[in-house]
């Protein structure tokens, strides 16, 4: 039977892959994709716990709020990427070193 731990392992794998994307990709859009993977993994966790706690829907409500925040994050993130491309003509994160970070 498929239990809670199956979903938790899938979510852990998605989280790790998303983190891998954030850490290794140079392209800013690709980093945003990694962030989306991480948010999705959190959502799977919340929905799975909601399902296995006798129909308490709070987890699903939280997942909806996470989707809202993800949409806002994608919009603002891509806006920043676009204006960065306009200013320094690249979206490679290792070349965006104006702030000497």
């Amino acid at each position, binding site marked *: 039977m498929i239990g809670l731990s199956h979903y938790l392992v899938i979510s852990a*794998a998605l989280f*790790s892959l998303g983190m891998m994307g954030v850490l290794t990709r140079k392209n800013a859009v690709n980093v*945003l994709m990694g962030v989306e993977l991480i948010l999705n993994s959190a959502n799977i966790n919340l*929905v799975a716990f909601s399902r296995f706690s006798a129909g308490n829907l709070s987890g699903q*409500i939280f997942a909806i709020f996470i989707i809202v925040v993800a949409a806002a994050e994608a919009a603002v993130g891509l806006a920043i990427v676009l204006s960065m491309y306009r200013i320094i003509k690249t979206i490679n994160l290792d070349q965006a070193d104006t702030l000497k970070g």
Partner: protein
Amino acid sequence: MDQNLLTQIVFYFFAVLTVGSAAAVVFSRSLIRSAFALLFTFFGVAALYAFLGADFLAATQMVIYVGGILVLLLFGVMLTHKLYELNLKSETYQLLPAVVVVCGVFGVLVTFMMRTHWHSGGQSPAVPTTAAIGELLMRDYVLPFEAASILLLIALIGAAMIVRRKSE
């Protein structure tokens, strides 16, 4: 019993689809390929929601992620590259430290998930959740709901302000 087996087969299919296409997102050389692999990841996650009895969330996932965020990301790819160059490669860096850190995080997460005894209240029957979610949003969670709507509005205006060209 037969149906149980079928359920497991379908579940593992979607689990492999989700994780496999997520790996393709992360490891694919081509940006466009990453974006399309992300499409399958979102599909797989929506299917997992459906497995968990979250029908409303599965539909929301399809509409917002596949219809909205993915299209937005594709626009981001298209607008930040000269399409004639066909130079849509994404390079990687800090590969070795990242692999070490990510494997460590994955190991710790799975270990704790397996060791923890979760207090399961039993699996709820899969009933339609839309009406209940709407009621909860309008009653118990009405303040976060309004805050989220204001957040979306602010993000929208802010994004438009950031990308707008300065008028000369």
